């Protein structure tokens, strides 16, 4: 079992504007992201031999890419894996390239959430998430349950816990100010975040990411061909993807202050990439901060800090833009919103730009290795993907 390390390279990427894009269609989003990627890679659309689409709600089948891009008569697969859909599409594309089946492939993640009204945020639980006594669910309640328990288990007062979460929101909002493509450009204060209206206690408005439309695209090739396109290509170093089957809703031995899927997916990716000390080795991490508590717990699960210590690390600024490990340097889901299928590719886009020193005012120095993380589902039964990327030697 050799793994994916250094076998495939990203040679072009594109990302649409994210936000409440009332005036843009699905077609607009896809064309905007993909044509930026074509141009970035310096390729012609005819060079694409196969494509993968990551999408959760907006589109079915490969034609969702074929039609807007006029990609005629090539294989296109649509991948759905909840919030991992974008990066899982990317993963499948990587393996096809590494297997030598294709030389140049396209990966697109996109979602148009805002055409639907707020009712789309309330969903009836359905297979495989069956909770007979709670027929409907919202994402906020799913993660709020962890907030309550995290505060309780680590004996954080409501005030202290809220302050810790608010600092994460403040950091991400600060980073988002420097991301022109983000949904939100607004500095916030800790006080503002702490006093914001409650969404699902203990999570308030600024603990939640936005709901937005967006698309992002990547062009991948075999590493030995990458210099045909550019010198500053970005390498895939490791991929870990796991699906949980533990179901915290029915197993009383599942705690809510760590996500085992995070731990396992990270182990898988770290092993492949040779990461032994993530805080030291990684320069960047794009984490799935659907809610601030998710970023907090994920930092612990991924080994960025010891269990129960996220508050100290946040207070010390370890994960800020100029900290030891920049977490969500583009503002994260917090500022981009979370167009489900697009988010994973958008995260890779940030690493790619940082590793090419094209991140503008948010450019970090330590960008040798970076990580993306996506998490979707219900507690104990998440799909989690961790992917590691690196600059070429």
């Amino acid at each position: 079992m050799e793994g994916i390390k250094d076998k495939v390279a990203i040679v072009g990427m594109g990302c649409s504007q994210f936000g409440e894009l009332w005036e843009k269609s699905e077609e607009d989003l896809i064309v905007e992201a993909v044509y930026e990627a074509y141009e970035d890679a310096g390729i012609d659309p005819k060079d694409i031999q196969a494509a993968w689409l990551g999408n959760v709600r907006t589109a079915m089948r490969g034609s969702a890419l074929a039609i807007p891009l006029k990609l005629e008569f090539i294989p296109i697969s649509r991948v759905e894996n909840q919030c991992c859909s974008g990066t899982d599409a990317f993963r499948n594309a990587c393996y096809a390239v590494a297997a030598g089946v294709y030389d140049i492939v396209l990966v697109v993640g996109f979602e148009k959430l805002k055409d639907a009204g707020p009712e789309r945020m309330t969903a009836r639980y359905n297979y495989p998430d069956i909770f007979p006594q709670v027929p409907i669910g919202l994402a906020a309640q799913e993660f709020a349950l962890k907030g309550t328990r995290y505060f309780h288990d680590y004996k954080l007062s409501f005030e202290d816990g809220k302050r810790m979460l608010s600092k994460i929101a403040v950091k991400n909002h600060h980073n988002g100010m420097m991301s022109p493509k983000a949904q939100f450009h607004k500095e916030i204060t800790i006080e503002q975040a702490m006093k914001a209206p409650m969404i699902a206690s203990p999570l308030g408005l600024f603990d939640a990411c936005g709901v937005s439309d967006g698309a992002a695209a990547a062009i991948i090739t075999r590493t030995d061909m990458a210099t045909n396109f550019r010198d500053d290509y970005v390498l895939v170093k490791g991929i870990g993807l796991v699906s949980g089957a533990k179901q915290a809703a029915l197993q009383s031995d599942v705690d809510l202050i760590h996500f085992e899927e995070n731990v396992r997916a990270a182990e898988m990716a770290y092993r492949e990439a040779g990461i032994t000390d993530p805080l030291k080795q990684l320069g960047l991490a794009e984490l799935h901060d659907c809610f601030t508590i998710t970023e907090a717990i994920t930092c612990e699960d991924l080994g960025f800090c010891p269990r129960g210590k996220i508050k100290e690390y946040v207070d010390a600024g370890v994960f800020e833009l100029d900290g030891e490990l920049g977490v969500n340097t583009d503002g994260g889901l917090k500022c981009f919103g979370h167009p489900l299928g697009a988010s994973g590719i958008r995260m890779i886009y940030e690493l790619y730009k940082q590793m090419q020193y094209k991140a503008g005012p948010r450019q970090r120095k330590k960008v040798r290795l970076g990580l993306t993380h996506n998490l979707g589902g219900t507690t104990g039964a998440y799909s989690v993907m961790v992917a590691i990327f690196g600059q070429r030697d």
Partner: protein
Amino acid sequence: MVGIISYGSYIPKWRLSRNAIATGLKGEKAIAGFDEDSITMAVEAGVNCLNNIGRDSIDGVIFCTTTSPYLEKQAASVVAKALDLRRDIFTADSLGCLRGGTIGLQIALDMVKAGSAKRILVTAADCRLGAPESGMEKDFGDGAAAILVGETEKPVAVIQGSYSVSNELMDVWRLAGETFVSMEEDRFIEEEGYKKTVREAVNGLMQKYGAEPKSFAKAVFYTPNLKSYQGLPKGLGLNPEQMQDCLYDRIGNTGTSYPLLLLVSALEDAKAEDKILFASYGDGSDAFILEAGRTSQDGAQGIRRFFENKTTVEDYRRYLKWRGILPLDKGKAVLIPRTSLKAMMRRQDEILRMYGAKCKVCGTIQYPPQRICTQCHSKDQFDQVRLSDKKGEVYTWTADFGAGGLETPIITLTNLEGGGRVFCIITDTTAQEMSVGLPVEFVLRKSYGQTIPEYIWKVRPTQIKA
């Protein structure tokens, strides 16, 4: 002998001060919570009545109400399923008549006497609506009672005789499609309807059994309101001390369940061999002579325990929204697709009977039931366990302010005594009263946002038993 084996009762925790309806009115009335209806209240009274009684011993359920959620379809079958009773039982609804509760009681008595059943559970519940600010709205309260009738050597009470009068009179009615109860002039109801008919039934009963008014320790009657009740004993040869407190100032007139609730209240206070006169009213009257037995039930089944365990709803508009009289802002409505009725059927044991699975190999309790054990991965090695009567403790919770609906849902993960965990909603509480570790118990409630009635088990803070 045939008698009352057990009784149970349920009064919702919510009270509406009559002063909130119209300034100056006295007392308060019990009101069902936003997630309660006649079925859920009947189930709660039924669970209460069957405390310490094997559910498999019940041969039938009669559900009595004027406020069934269904015009066509039985409600007793829902009650029986939620109570986890056998499948080979008799179920019937006694609908539409205010004396439905005693109709159910009479049928149960006769079934047991005739030998077609050994034990019949009579449940009565109502949640009637008078038009806003009307006299009826002020009078009506919500509540439920349950009486288990059967062969027993240790009766709580024996029913020694009965006498019925059928009377055709348009005094109080509600037509199909109407929300609010209608009534004729109150003097007409009180004089021509209520007093005349109840007196006829009681006098007939006395004559039939040669009973003397003064032989009764207590007299228990349905009443439309307090004034009618105060005028009733005159003409019956009863003195006011014999009259059971009709609880008008505490709970109000709870419809079909009202006479049964008052009977429970009388039995709660009765001494062995006390004789009780008991009569209902509605399109006639059913009158009974009861004698209290030597067996008494603990206060956990009486209604006294509800007197102090209450929360007053201060805002009349909140009550009107709960009842659907004031429309909910569309933006706050929970818009969800209807449940698949096929899936509901398939999962009925988990949803309504609240069956979990206990692994025969490793003993792990899991809810909902799985095919492969969550712990030891054995396949199909499970016993069914009813979880609705387990106590639990909140493991974690959140008040979901974004969920919409009539009240902010508070979602919990609840760990059960004896093992197992359930993802469920907590009701009858507020975010301010929540904490990790809170002791809870299960109650059947309406689901939210439904287009057809859907029932789920929620938890609520454990009530301190009397």
